[in-house]
């Protein structure tokens, strides 16, 4: 056996990822401690970070980020669980329905934004026509420019685009539960709710917690849908860190300031990655236990 085969295989990947990911990360961290004025770059220590912690826009954006990621975790997981439970039985056209329900995943971000922007248009959008059926609602709701509503509209759109993944994964974990468990519980006289509580729920909790971490990470990564729909507005209502960094860099050209915010974002990403590893181990352990039982 060649013992140094792993080196030969590692080198191309490490070079590639090093050039396009690791090196930019290092360079970004360096930028965060520098300032460029009229083409002259100088070290400024923690000045950018000091500016950052006194910047209300930064804190507003941190708050928006956490509100948004939390909302997405809740919405994606409940939608995913609901759809998975609904489609987890042997019915005619099952695979067809699953195919249909996964279509939003295949529609790219830009057309998704276009469609939702048109549907949410205050003057001729279809959603306002539907909303006008509700008594007391007047038909010119400014979905994407009114405070709070813009946040809700973004959540709707991101939820639509992303939920298929969660329902597919939860469905596959529901199907890993051995049928004998349900049979046995039924023989023992357990009702639907009792069966859900003592069999279904404990079997899928590890998967759900792993998905919660992933939902946090994926909503944290979200850029295109938010940026093209609202640009982060109104105010900082929908301006997550990703949006704020982009605006600071490409609207105000504060590259160094944007980089110091990116350092905070990177730290959050590291925490997310570690959480993912921890929760994933739990899922693997659970699968192993289930395998032993089945």
């Amino acid at each position, binding site marked *: *056996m*060649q013992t140094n*085969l*792993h080196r030969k*295989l590692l080198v*191309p*990947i490490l070079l*590639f*990822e090093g*050039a*396009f*990911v690791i090196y*930019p*990360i290092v*360079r*970004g961290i360096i930028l965060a401690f520098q300032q460029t004025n009229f083409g002259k770059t100088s070290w400024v220590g923690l000045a950018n970070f000091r500016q950052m912690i006194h910047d209300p826009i930064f804190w507003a954006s941190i708050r928006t980020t956490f509100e948004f990621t939390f909302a997405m975790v809740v919405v994606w997981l409940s939608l995913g669980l609901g*759809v998975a439970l*609904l489609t987890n039985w042997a019915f005619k056209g099952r695979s067809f329905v699953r195919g249909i*329900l996964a*279509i*939003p995943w*295949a*529609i*790219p*971000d*830009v*057309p998704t*934004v*276009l*469609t*939702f*922007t*048109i*549907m949410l248009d205050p003057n*001729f959008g*279809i959603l306002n*026509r539907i909303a*006008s059926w509700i008594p007391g609602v007047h038909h010119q709701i400014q979905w994407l420019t009114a405070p709070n509503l813009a946040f809700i509209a973004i959540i709707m759109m991101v939820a639509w685009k992303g939920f298929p*993944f969660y329902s597919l*994964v939860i469905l596959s974990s529901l199907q890993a539960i051995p049928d004998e*468990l349900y049979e046995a519980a039924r*023989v*023992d006289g357990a009702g639907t709710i009792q069966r859900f509580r003592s*069999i279904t729920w404990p079997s899928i909790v590890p*998967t759900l917690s792993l998905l919660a971490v992933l939902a946090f990470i994926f909503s*944290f*990564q979200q*850029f*295109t849908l938010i940026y*093209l729909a609202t640009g982060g507005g109104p105010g900082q209502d929908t301006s997550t860190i990703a949006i704020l*960094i*982009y605006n600071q*860099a490409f609207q105000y050209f504060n590259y160094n300031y944007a980089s110091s915010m*990116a350092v905070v974002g*990177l730290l959050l*990403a590291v925490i997310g*990655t570690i959480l993912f590893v921890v929760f*994933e181990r739990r*899922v693997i352990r659970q699968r192993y236990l289930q395998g032993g*039982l089945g």
Partner: protein
Amino acid sequence: MAVSTVAITSAPARTPPVRNPWPRRKRKAKEAFRYAVIVVLCLVVLFPVYWMVLSTFQPEKYTLTYPPPFWLHGFNTNAISSLFNQQPVASWLFHSFIVSAVTVVVTVVLAIPGAYLLSRLRFRGSGAFAFLLLFTQLMPGAMIIVPELEWFRTLHWTNNLFALGLVYAAFNVPLGCWILKSSFDTVPNEVVDAGYVDGCTQLGSIRRILLPLSRSGLVAVVIVAFFGSWNDYLFASAFLTNRSLYTAGLGIATFISQQNVQLYQLMAAGVVFSLLPVLLYVSVQRHVARGLTAGALK
């Protein structure tokens, strides 16, 4: 714990308790209700797609009126033809295609050794390697957009479609490695060992044994890389400043702020841009669904 106790205590079969008097009818009603909910759900989920297609082919006088009609009042292909006549959409789509091709090729070429490392080799630093891949996959692109742009400016790689494809590949290689690793994992060791007995080298075993047995994994990697590249707006918007080099996603996004682009053209652009990924998804859905979920959870 709850799971195992149920399994053990109920092992001996007993006579079922008395059920309700008309179980059949009740079950039928329950099924009908479930079907109804599923149909409603499908309609809600498909509605935005329906609306995009409807707005593309709706005759122009209906698209900007309130209330907007729910149904098609005629069939108007003017949106599609005027889109291609008035805007460089065809060349933008071609650019997207080139960039995606670069992404797919580079991702597959690098994911194969990566997956082999994760699946079959134990070496010092393998944990760090796995963490590096995972972090790259989970890190938001916006966090490195500034230094990446500076780096590319130094290299004079902005406005370069090939270089853009390389960046997308860098972000898709990790997921590609995980997906392919889970495919490699399913190949039994005995099969690989039999290959060694027949004189296969370790590298030869990847090409002759593992890859042919991991076709659906490979398809999933191709799909993921293609979608990742086709879908991007963030990096394209920073790296491409020359309008004649725009990818379709970037070009179509600029329509949003342009006054001279009609609404129905906007929707037509959306339909045209979604066509390829949706067709791809529909054609490989069966094979890929497993590979994708497996890859996401390793």
